[in-house]
């Protein structure tokens, strides 16, 4: 029979919709509205997993996000959609769900790892710090570690890429209400009614909160109706957003709350195009924290047996899901709330073997206690469970009075425990809210926060439904803009719920046997004895306690255990609990899927990609691309049968012999206008600029404030007051920001305006001895040497298939050949490119990529910001000391004269030629003696190198200690990584046309 433990009626499940699911290979059935946990319980499945350290059998402990035990592997571990460590208590059931227990082998019923439980006497808290140190080599620890790592961990990560997608959603509101229980609904409704923009979110699928105050009445209505009415009313407001299945997981600066919406996790078949989860970034003017409270247990021997459950959870299963979590229960409590469980279970037909109450009989006289007695329940006052018995499920408990004495055994298959309730203060604490220890509740409750976050209801220690609704309304009203956040933090009476009888703190029941395990942290197997051991050894700060024992470090982050642990530490130290304090609450409140954090910005979009206007042409013509910053640039254009290197060599040779065209659109371009542009240039470049004539351009070098080279480029004068500056691709943003800073902050009186035009202009460089004849065919100006000499600039047009296109032409050369740069508005980039390629057909034009460009510039000895100017070099190191104009100030100049920047052993730019016909190794280091014992002193390193097709030799640029004085020396270039050593000859960095004659033809 399926669902043998389903009650005949009741609950929010939809009994008309049966869903099939599989757990550990067995088929079961549940109903729509079930969680996996409630469905398992309905089928009598209690053993669902094994614990982290001792591999002890574990069952379902809670009914919510605090679950430490019931973690399952969702979907078959071999699939791409498998998910480890899913809380059965939070996973909505869907048709076809498949789940399995974790951390056990071969099965949850017989688990080899349980050997750890037998050996547990050797494994107290922190045992690994004391052993595994022999034999004394790191190799041995690696071997021990291998075994330990395989025993640890829990579920299994997927092996295939996640097939689902995720997205972000920014949102803004006046009031964010976290938690849709009675308090949250009341707060949201009040704020929305007052006209505020409201967002209300709740971690669960249904509104109304965790405990389910079924039976209570609010505003003279049964609570269920009140909930339904309030939700419906709320939804009517224009400016409210209701977010079920959405966990507010973190509170960040500026009142921004991160929340995660599980959009399709409850569906067997997610709709196409719908994200699996959505990460909300909610900027709220104020936050009402109505996140409820979390129940805690009590430690006694074997309090981890399956069948042991928080009292509130047992009640939730019975009332909310219509499930009987056991057939014969004992209820163990130190406060009133568990009486509701006892009564509800009793109503549901569960035999209540006993209500074991730690409080004296004299306190158990109020309505609820009487009600329980009247219903025939046996109340054992002054008593406690001293131990539980059973194998894979609890079978009985031993009960004794707290004063000691003989114990009696009570048979049961369900133990419902309540040690009190802890307000869910996580977000409040993340918002720098201070906590206060509340004696009557024996827990920490919100005190004050400097930020606009208002705790209310159970989250504020108010456990009475009517009072919680009142607090919710007050908080909702106080949170609306202009209200001034006046809600006082504690305005309702604080009692432990229902009947107002005081709770009697009870953290752990004294052990009767030394070997008995009394668990505090169920997930991490931290016991009462572990806490005592930490205290004994001096790990007494809560933070040491946590790190030494791993208390609270599990996926539940100690939601049900932390307070017990620190209370026990306080007992050990004989200190009041507030003196011991809590560990830090950190985001996320409950674990958040990694995939949600990048949203769309993942895989190909993890960073944006920038494409030049000519990109498609390059692609159509066989270009191989490389990443250059965010840009894609053609590396080379291999022809059939060519390697990329062959192609680059051919392209480079062709530039020297014929003509080539390269896409240089990625260079940074900044236009400057105003009367004082020349003065600005004088201040940011090392060389002099007030002499730059109209229609001319010049090369410049910029320094950082510390005197080292920052960037280089050219600047052209387009009109009397209009200039164009180019920067390197990588530094474009940085240079623009620096100019803006200087103009806005430091030199406000300069009449200069700047804008980035990198995107505006597509640019190509045409170089080679035949460049002019090609250019002449497409330009509408005279490009003869006389009319358009070296370093000339013109505003002109290019003849393209789209007609005459406005252009700028620059006669400058990076390759060392006769060369021009042509810029056109980017929407004409491709037309310009095609026009030049077509015009160059007769001249043997070839497109070339960054690799050939690199070869050409290395041959020419041109430096690049990056390899040569590596952030540690001065202009003088690069052989450009003479550019520093002695007659004027510029950025970086004041610190240039420091001794270390002018020392004789500075690494200076040189050229190297590989001897013996050898190939230059990649990224080699330069040494004098390759056989020197290690460490072998390094004289410098190779910065850029290539095979020079034009010289038929491997050449390089290098930074070499005192390099300019070493021209002619023979040294060694070494790459131990590649196991290569090559003799190299030092020379000047320029290998081709040092006089620059070819530029000026």
């Amino acid at each position, binding site marked *: 029979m399926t669902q043998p433990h389903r009650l005949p009626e009741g609950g929010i499940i939809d009994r008309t919709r049966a869903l099939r699911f599989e757990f550990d290979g067995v088929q079961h059935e549940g109903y729509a509205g079930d969680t996996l946990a409630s469905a398992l319980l309905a089928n009598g499945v209690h053993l669902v997993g094994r614990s982290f350290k001792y591999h002890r059998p574990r069952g379902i402990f809670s009914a919510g996000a605090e679950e430490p035990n019931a973690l399952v592997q969702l979907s078959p571990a071999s699939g791409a959609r498998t998910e480890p460590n899913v809380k059965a208590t939070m996973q909505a059931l869907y048709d076809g769900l498949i789940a399995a227990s974790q951390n056990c082998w071969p099965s949850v019923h017989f688990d080899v790892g349980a050997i750890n439980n037998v050996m547990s006497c050797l494994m107290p808290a922190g045992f690994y710090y004391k052993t595994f140190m022999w034999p004394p080599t790191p190799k041995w620890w690696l071997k021990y570690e291998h075994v330990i790592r395989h025993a640890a961990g829990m579920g299994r990560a997927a092996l295939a890429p996640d097939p689902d997608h995720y*997205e972000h959603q920014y949102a803004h509101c006046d009031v964010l209400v976290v938690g849709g229980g009675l308090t949250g609904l009341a707060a949201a409704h009040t704020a929305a009614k007052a006209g505020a923009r409201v967002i209300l979110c709740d971690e669960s699928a249904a509104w109304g909160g965790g405990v389910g105050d079924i039976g209570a009445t609010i505003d003279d209505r049964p609570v269920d109706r009140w909930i339904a009415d309030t939700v419906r009313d709320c939804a009517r407001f224009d400016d409210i957003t209701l977010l079920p299945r959405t966990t507010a997981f973190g509170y960040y600066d500026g009142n921004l709350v991160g929340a995660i919406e599980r959009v399709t996790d409850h569906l067997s078949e997610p709709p196409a195009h719908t*994200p699996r989860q959505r990460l909300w970034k909610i900027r709220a003017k104020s936050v009402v924290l109505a996140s409820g409270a979390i129940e805690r247990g009590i430690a006694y021997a074997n309090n981890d047996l399956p069948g042991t459950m928080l009292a509130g959870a047992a009640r939730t299963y019975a009332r909310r899901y219509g499930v009987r979590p056991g057939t014969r229960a004992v209820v163990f409590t130190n406060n009133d709330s568990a009486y509701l469980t006892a009564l509800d279970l009793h109503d549901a037909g569960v035999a209540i073997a006993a209500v074991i109450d730690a409080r004296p009989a004299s306190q158990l006289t109020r309505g609820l206690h009487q009600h329980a007695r009247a219903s025939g329940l046996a109340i054992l006052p002054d008593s406690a469970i001293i131990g539980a018995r059973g194998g894979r499920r609890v079978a009985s408990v031993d009960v004794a009075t707290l004063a000691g004495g003989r114990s009696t055994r009570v048979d049961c298959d369900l133990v419902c425990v309540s040690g009190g309730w802890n307000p869910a203060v996580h977000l409040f604490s993340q918002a720098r809210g201070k906590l206060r220890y509340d004696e009557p509740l024996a827990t920490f409750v919100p005190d004050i926060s400097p930020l606009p976050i208002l705790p209310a209801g159970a989250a504020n220690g108010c456990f009475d439904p009517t009072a919680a609704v009142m607090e919710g309304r007050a908080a909702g009203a106080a949170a609306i803009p202009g209200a001034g956040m006046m809600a006082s933090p504690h305005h309702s009476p604080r009692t432990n719920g229902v009947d107002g009888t005081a709770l009697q703190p009870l953290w752990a029941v004294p052990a009767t046997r030394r070997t008995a395990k009394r668990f505090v942290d169920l997930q991490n197997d931290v016991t009462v004895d572990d806490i005592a051991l930490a205290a004994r050894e001096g790990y007494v700060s809560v933070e040491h306690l946590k790190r030494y024992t791993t208390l609270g470090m599990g996926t539940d982050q100690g939601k049900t255990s932390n307070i017990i642990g620190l209370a026990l530490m306080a007992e050990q130290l004989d200190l009041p609990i507030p003196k011991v304090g809590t560990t830090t609450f950190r985001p996320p409140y409950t674990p958040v899927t990694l995939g949600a954090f990048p949203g*769309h910005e993942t895989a190909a*979009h993890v960073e944006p990609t920038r494409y030049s206007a000519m990109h498609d042409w390059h692609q159509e013509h066989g270009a191989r691309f490389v990443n250059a910053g965010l840009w894609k640039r053609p590396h080379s254009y291999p022809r059939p049968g060519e390697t990329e290197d062959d192609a680059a060599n051919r392209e480079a040779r062709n530039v020297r012999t014929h003509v080539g065209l390269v896409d240089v659109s990625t260079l940074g371009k900044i236009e400057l206008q105003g009367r004082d542009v020349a003065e600005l240039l004088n201040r940011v470049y090392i060389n002099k600029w007030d002499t730059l004539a109209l229609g001319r351009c010049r090369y410049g070098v910029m320094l950082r404030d510390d005197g080292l080279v920052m960037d280089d480029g050219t600047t052209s004068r387009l009109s009397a007051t209009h200039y164009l500056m180019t920067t390197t691709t990588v530094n474009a943003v940085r240079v623009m920001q620096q100019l803006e800073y200087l103009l806005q902050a430091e030199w406000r009186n300069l009449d200069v*305006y700047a804008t980035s035009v*990198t995107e*505006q202009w597509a640019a190509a460089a045409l170089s080679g001895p035949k460049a002019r004849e090609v250019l002449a065919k497409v330009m509408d100006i005279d490009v003869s040497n006389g009319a358009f000499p070296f370093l000339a600039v013109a505003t002109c047009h290019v003849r393209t298939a789209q007609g005459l296109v406005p252009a700028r032409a620059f006669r400058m050369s990076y390759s060392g050949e006769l060369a021009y740069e042509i810029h056109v508005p980017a929407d004409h980039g491709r037309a310009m490119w095609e026009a030049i390629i077509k015009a160059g057909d007769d001249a043997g034009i070839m497109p070339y990529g960054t690799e050939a460009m690199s070869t050409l510039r290395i041959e020419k000895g041109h430096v690049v910001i990056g390899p040569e100017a590596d952030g540690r070099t001065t202009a003088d190191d690069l052989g450009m000391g003479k550019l520093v104009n002695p007659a004027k100030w510029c950025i970086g100049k004041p610190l240039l004269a420091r001794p270390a920047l002018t020392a004789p052993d500075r690494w200076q730019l040189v050229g190297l030629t590989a001897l013996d016909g050898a190939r230059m190794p990649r990224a080699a280091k330069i040494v004098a003696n390759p056989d020197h014992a290690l460490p072998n002193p390094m004289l410098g390193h190779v910065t850029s190198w290539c095979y020079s097709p034009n010289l038929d030799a491997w050449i390089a640029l290098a930074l070499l200690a005192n390099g300019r004085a070493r021209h002619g020396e023979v040294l060694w270039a070494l790459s131990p990584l590649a196991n290569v050593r090559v003799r190299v000859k030092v020379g000047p960095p320029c290998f081709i046309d040092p006089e620059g004659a070819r530029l000026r033809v």
Partner: protein
Amino acid sequence: MSDQDRIASGIPVDPHAGPAPLVLAPIAIATAWNVQGDPTRAPFSDEVENLFGVRVPTVANTTVRGGTLLALWLGPRSWLLVHAAGAEASSSLMDFEAKRDALNAHGGALFDVSASRVAFTIRGAHAATVLAKNCPLDFHLRAFPVGGCAQSLFGHVNALFYRPEASSFTMMVARSFTRDAWDTLRASAAQYGGDVAPPP
């Protein structure tokens, strides 16, 4: 959208949205000029008015329409001049060099950035929601009124937003980032189906 739908999908609804679910389409920018200068100096602002027939807006994140021109506030000393939607190319955005020189002579500057940006229109009931998936701006009508403009990010990419109507936005992104922004826009809009033009 019924209340029920709204709750189920968790999407804030733009109450002023028109009937269309969502339309995405590239739009062409013919001419876009960036004017810069100090608006508190009369020679400059007078000259702008003289040249273009508009006084540039001095209130942040607003636009001014002058005849066929739309001037968008980009910064305290920077504006973008474009043809207003539907306007025929007019003479005011012609003769770049003369106008540049005139502004340079009056302590201002003029840059031609016509090809720098690519524009999209995002229109329909979900327009604001789709933008807010990737942009931290508040698109509520109270915070971002009709006729307003603002610069921010769309995903990783800098973007300029303009709101011509309650449920319609123009988004401009730098040209080299177009594909990235378009992919993000499409992915964010996919769940609403709707009318998506082919990529630019």
